[in-house]
């Protein structure tokens, strides 16, 4: 029984949030208008590293991404021995189209946090844009692990200039960015003249990657969520998780048995769970995931957050949904950090 009544994947209009939302993304003590600059006290201990990627063809222009990094030369462990201090996007003439600085600090011979970035071109019907993924590793914990977080920037044309697009607008909200053209006939018929592009961001959930769809109009600076799902509960609509593709690196347990509570739907209230014993030779297939995705934004970096996270699996001939750290671990998906 499926209560997801509305999957607004074809919604063409979305809303930009009115006003900035200041959320505490850990990497962003950034200065948006200043050139890359390092903490002076640490400068004496670090070396400068410059990396370039591109060129990327966007709206007839060629852009190059320049990353300015700081490295601690006497640190053999590169995990926290190098960090991004600034980033620039330059046009073919070398003019800076965008720049951003990131602060850093050294503690006990390591950077407190290490930031890295990777850029890729995202071509589409509406043009092309630039996607930059940031990966931030924070200092080692007492257990020896690294905490890794991911952030993104999407660049498209805003008023004819390359600029970050900000947080995706939720589908169904009003006053959102321009996301296409809809022709409405006198008889009420609606014709979609152009549609935005759909891109997917591969995002770490804590246990596996999901591919989060976004709708983007590169040439008009529009960015919205790619899907939004609602369910009918108690006579009203309630936000529900949407299904997404998954990429997972499963490491089956060495135990003879592990245990899964398998739900018919990605919802605990629809029916009681079936108890499935996972054995070493059990056939296990991951078919997808479901989660409610909300977006945070700190200055110009955006980050998705997942709630009500479920994994769609097939064990032998039984298919269902599992949730929670305990069951993900039983399935061989222990919690951790994404690849840097």
């Amino acid at each position, binding site marked *: 029984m499926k209560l997801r009544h509305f999957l607004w994947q074809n919604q063409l209009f979305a809303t930009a949030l009115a006003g900035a939302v200041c959320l505490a993304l850990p990497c962003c003590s950034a200065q948006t208008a200043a050139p890359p600059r390092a903490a002076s006290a640490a400068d004496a201990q670090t070396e400068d590293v410059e990396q370039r990627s591109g060129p990327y063809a966007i709206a007839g222009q060629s852009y190059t991404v320049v990353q300015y990094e700081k490295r601690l030369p006497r640190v053999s462990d590169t995990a926290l021995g190098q960090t991004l201090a600034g980033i620039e996007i330059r046009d073919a003439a070398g003019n800076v189209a965008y720049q951003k600085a990131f602060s850093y600090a050294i503690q006990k011979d390591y950077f407190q946090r290490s930031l890295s970035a990777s850029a890729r071109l995202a071509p589409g019907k509406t043009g092309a844009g630039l996607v930059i993924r940031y990966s931030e590793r924070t200092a080692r914990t007492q257990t020896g692990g690294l905490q890794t977080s991911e952030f993104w920037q999407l660049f498209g044309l805003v008023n004819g200039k390359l600029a970050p697009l900000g947080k995706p607008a939720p589908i169904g909200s009003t006053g959102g960015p321009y996301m296409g053209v809809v022709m409405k006939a006198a008889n009420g018929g609606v014709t979609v003249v152009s549609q935005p592009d759909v891109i997917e961001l591969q995002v770490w959930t804590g246990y596996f990657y999901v591919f989060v769809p976004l709708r983007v109009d590169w040439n008009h600076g529009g960015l919205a969520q790619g899907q939004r799902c609602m369910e009918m509960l108690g006579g009203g609509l309630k936000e529900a998780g949407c299904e997404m593709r998954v990429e997972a690196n499963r490491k089956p347990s060495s135990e003879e*048995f592990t*245990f899964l*509570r398998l739900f018919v739907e990605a919802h605990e209230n629809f029916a*009681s*769970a*079936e*108890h*499935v*014993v996972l*054995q070493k030779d059990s056939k296990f297939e991951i078919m997808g995931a479901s989660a409610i995705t909300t977006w945070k934004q700190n200055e110009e970096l955006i980050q998705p957050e997942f709630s009500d996270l479920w994994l769609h699996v097939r064990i032998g001939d039984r298919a269902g949904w599992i949730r929670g750290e305990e069951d993900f671990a039983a399935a061989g998906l222990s919690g951790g950090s994404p690849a840097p």
Partner: protein
Amino acid sequence: MKTVHFAVIGLFAVVAAVFGWRAVHTRVRPQSTLPSAQPSIAQPSGTQAQPPSPQTLPAPAPPSEAVKLLGPFSIGGQSYKVELRTRKVQPGSTQESGDTVVAMEIKDAAGAILYRKTFPYQEANGEFSDSWSVSALQLIGKNGSGLLVSYDAYSEPSAPEEEPTGWYQIFGVIDGKLSSFGAPIEVQGGLLDKYADRGSYRAERPIGTEADVIDFKFWSGHCRLIFPVRVDWSHGKLSPAQECSVAAGEPGAGCQYGVVPEDKLYRSDITFVRLWPNPNEKSGKAEKTVVKVDSKVELIAALVPTRWVDGKSAGPADNSNDWIKEAGGFGIAPESDLWIKVRIDGKEGWIHTEEDFRSLGLPEDE
């Protein structure tokens, strides 16, 4: 007096016939339900019992009715018998046939009617076939003896149930007169085989010098629990042997009950259950325990709040059919969390929730 009882029992080792015309065991309860009203203190009917007046004596059985006798039963040195008036059941869509009880009378040795109860008669309607059966057992306790009468309703066609619903009424001698110990009690379950013996039903144990405890089984939704009922011979009153009623607005953990072993558990594949060390999820981390198809599963005990409702006794001449609505009863309190203590291949723990009951293969209503 007890010696006399047992001597008489020996003399009258007559089986209280179980009068049931059908072999079909699928039953549904009639239109009665466990009263939802708050329990109230019922007056022992024995203190009010008066023989029906001559005006209330029934007319001789019409030609369409037959008379059948149960007993005699020796109670308090007196002999009693139960007389049933029956009629042919009207066949429904399932073409049922047989007899149905339309009236029951308890008479003393002289033939005087001490108690009378009537039962609805289902006229032919071509769809349903409803009928009643009545059985009687001598109830034997250490502190007293009485008559245990049960009323069972059948309806065809009907959906199968794990346990049928029946009504039980206990009679004993108060001030030298046979009296009903309150209204019948409605039970989805019944009597336990181990206490039944050749027309009698033994009490499980005495309480003090004036009461005995008799055990009923009742359906919990996934297993049959043993509910002890206190029979107060001196005051003619029934009550729960252990006080587990849920206080208003305060759903307690309940009381611990025995569990009837299940003959069949429904498992077709390896599975697991979550075993808690105590009947509380906060009692510790649940241990996930493998249950194989051939695992040895024992049901040890159950913990659940229950509800007892006193019925409304109609006195010795119950000629209306309202007695069904006014019956008392007991069962699991609404919205209760049933915990069952189990032993799986030697490992003990407590389970609850539908998913664990189902994983263990416990039966459930369709």
